[in-house]
């Protein structure tokens, strides 16, 4: 399976002469930084999904919004595709360049324009790093809630494009719940304000539509986020289990007890070992699974909740429960989880990170399915799980240098996602579809649903010049990709040729 753009399956792209495009852009935008030599383009050939690399035709690094506007207008006129990129940390290839396209890099827009502690909002440019917002808000006792693990590097424009999550989503929501307003520039070079500084805006909720739209509808040029008061107190309980299923059940029991933890994370044996070897977080190596449960809020409530959760965990059969004694130990417990990906990365030359979501009750069944796939393929799989909100991150370990292993890892990954869809879940909880899961979209959605997505796209970008080939597959691709969505036992679109 190759996920690079395939004109036969993803639609024809306009053929433009690189030299002509370069000259036209240089003429229209003499002050714009435009990279065109191979050695300058090389650093931009991939995003966080580094297994796939494509040299863009050109890279544009604008400094002003006027340049972005003019760039979009010119590309629209010439019919040149545009792929937008922020910090390039995305894990689904959403910013994978196109050979025939311009890569628009927004990283120079990195100013925090305003922090208003009384209104509890921050207005920032799209290249501002996620963590930098919380750092700027900290002197006022405020923070920005969504905290993807890449938060030291990822930028807010990309967070909006992907509807980024993190480990505190169950209680504090995703990006879509924490953004008030965005400024965008459309492919036609038109500026638009979506949302407002108030809690709502007249008309359609375009803010919800744009959040998570993966750069397919417009370019985000400014973001106003909500800030929350920092919780007065946070405590973390770590519980070990001799059985993964018991840990999974404990998650449901905590929520059934009426507690919504700030964070509720689960790791299996392989992930525990990797994290422990890497950061020495103090995890129990003999456990089959651990749960990390963070309770935050006003101190007295946190203490009450800690007692309740401890009781629930004991009842669920935890073999050991420890409470982080101080902030240092709490940080250490979290360090293991937040570094789980690089930790697992030390166990094999490569890993492939999945992002499926499932109803929590399906956890035991899905974990068994993953174990079976791992055994069958011979590739180890470590499981890291945002247990509270049902978001799994199975990490498939492999070695690209061994012939066929990348393909095998992708096959295992694809089957894991199909397992998630079958369990009533989704192929992606927070990493996005991008290019990586383009085929699995055909498993999750029927052709009629995909047709509606194309209609939405057409309303904003009729000529499909913005990030073509990402997020929404063509019906041709779905017809060719084996796993058709069979609805009511009827094969959809019987008129399309199948090979």
């Amino acid at each position, binding site marked *: 399976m190759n996920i690079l753009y395939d004109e036969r399956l993803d639609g024809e792209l306009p053929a433009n002469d690189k030299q002509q495009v370069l000259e036209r852009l240089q003429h229209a935008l003499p002050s714009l930084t435009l990279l065109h030599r191979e050695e300058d383009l090389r650093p931009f050939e991939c995003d966080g999904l580094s297994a796939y690399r494509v040299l863009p035709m050109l890279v544009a690094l604008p400094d002003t919004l006027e340049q972005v506007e003019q760039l979009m207008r010119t590309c629209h006129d010439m019919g040149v595709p545009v792929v937008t990129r922020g910090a390039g940390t995305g894990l689904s290839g959403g910013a994978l360049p196109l050979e025939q396209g311009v890569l628009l890099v927004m990283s120079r827009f990195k100013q925090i324009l305003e922090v208003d*502690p*009384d*209104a509890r*909002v921050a207005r920032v440019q799209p290249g501002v790093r996620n963590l930098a917002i919380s750092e700027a808000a900290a002197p*006022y006792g405020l923070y920005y809630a969504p905290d993807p693990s890449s938060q030291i590097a990822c930028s807010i424009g990309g967070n909006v494009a992907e*509807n980024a*999550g993190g480990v505190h989503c169950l209680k504090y929501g995703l990006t*879509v*719940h924490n953004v008030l307003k965005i400024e965008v520039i*459309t492919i036609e070079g*038109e500026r638009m*304000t979506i949302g*407002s*500084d*108030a*809690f*709502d805006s*007249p*008309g*359609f*909720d*375009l803010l*919800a*539509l744009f*959040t*998570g*739209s993966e750069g397919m509808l417009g370019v985000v040029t400014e973001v106003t986020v909500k800030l929350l*008061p*920092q*919780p*007065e107190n946070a405590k973390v309980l770590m519980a070990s289990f001799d059985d993964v299923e018991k840990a999974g059940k404990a998650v*449901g029991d905590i929520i*059934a007890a*009426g507690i919504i933890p700030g964070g509720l994370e689960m790791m299996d044996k392989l992930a525990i070992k990797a994290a422990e070897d890497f950061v020495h977080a103090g995890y129990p190596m003999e456990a089959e699974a651990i749960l990390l449960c963070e309770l935050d*809020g*006003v101190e*007295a*409530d946190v203490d*009450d909740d800690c007692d309740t959760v401890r009781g629930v965990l004991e009842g669920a059969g935890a073999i050991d429960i420890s409470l982080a004694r101080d902030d240092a130990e709490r940080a250490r417990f979290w360090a293991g989880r937040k570094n789980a990906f690089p930790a697992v990365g030390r166990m094999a030359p490569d890993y492939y990170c999945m992002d499926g*979501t499932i*109803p929590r*009750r399906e956890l035991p069944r899905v974990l068994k399915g993953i174990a079976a796939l791992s055994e069958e393929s011979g590739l180890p799989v470590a499981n890291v799980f*945002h247990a*509270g*909100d*049902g*978001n799994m991150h199975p990490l498939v370990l492999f070695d690209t240098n061994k012939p066929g292993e990348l393909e095998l890892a992708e096959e295992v990954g694809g089957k894991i996602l199909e397992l998630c869809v079958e369990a009533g*879940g*989704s192929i*992606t*909880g*927070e990493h996005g579809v991008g290019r990586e899961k383009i085929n699995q979209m055909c498993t999750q959605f029927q052709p*009629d*649903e995909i047709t*509606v*997505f194309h*209609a*939405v796209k*057409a*309303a904003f970008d009729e000529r499909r010049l913005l990030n073509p080939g990402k997020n929404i597959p063509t019906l041709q691709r779905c017809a060719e990709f084996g796993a058709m969505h069979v609805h009511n036992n009827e094969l959809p679109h019987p008129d399309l040729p199948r090979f």
Partner: protein
Amino acid sequence: MARQHQDMAEALCERVRQADHDKTPLKIVGGDTKAFYGRRVEGDILSTRDHHGISHYDPVELIISVRAGTLISELEAALDAEGQRLPFEPPHFGESATVGGMIATGLSGPRRPWAGSVRDFVLGSRIITHEGKHLRFGGEVMKNVAGYDLSRLMAGAQGTLGLLTEVSLKVLPKPTATHSLRLAMPLASALESLAEWGRQPLPITAAAYHDGALHLRLEGGPSSVAATRERLGGDVLDDEFWTQLREHQLPFFADTDERPLWRLSLPNNTPALELETRSDTDVLYDWGGAQRWVRTSIDGRSLRDAVATAGGHATCYTPGASDPFMPLAPSVAKYHRRLKATLDPNGIFNPGRLYAEV
């Protein structure tokens, strides 16, 4: 009394297909409690009332899926039985209010600034397209970023983009403690205090100012509610106040007042606007000042200009208003028209309800 579950999706699909074929506009009606909220629609009435029932409720997963014709009161009763609730506290405006109308109008109650709005709790939906196809977007999981978020787009779209038949919502447990209180103080002090408290992790979940007093609701664990109650003092307020505010049953909202009723939505921490000080104007502050109910004789245009300057928008709640919703910026309006044209090319879904052109 809860009615029998009923799945009328097939019949609704057929009805929509026919309307699309004949290019006959449909006026979508649930409990007909929020007809005042929006422009008048001319079309054949399509009722969602017979498509009702809770199709799936899993309290441990914190999700519920419910058909559009279900009464909000039925939905709330089912949640209540499990110690859960809809955190966004939707107004009913009548006993017959349905879930479809709740999503379509996108209205939220006093808890909104702290808990989130209707759309924040939408996880998935089933929608009948103009071609009469019954499709599914989103789902019953907390996190799902596959494809565009059409489910949340439906919230507040007033049925102009498709026929919503079912919605999946995130629900939350009720807090273990609640206390409402009333503090007599001038408006300026109230707004100042709210800004200060907003930066602190206090368990405030409603804040309204009217008649010389700040009304607050505290919700959370018993310890934090008790501690905050002690810190803030004030007189005990009946929790029913919040229901009356949500349902517009306070005397302020009485029909006997002939001045139009406006809803202003403003940024947090917006001071009193000049128009609020006029002698022909009365104001009730909700959402900590971010939502203001205004009775005034000032003309709509001047009011909207003032509100827009402050970064907000104004909606006219008086039935029969010709333009209840604030006009959109030209570029935004253009994409509204385009979305409408691609999703409802024959203009059959509630045409003109939101704006003349959508």
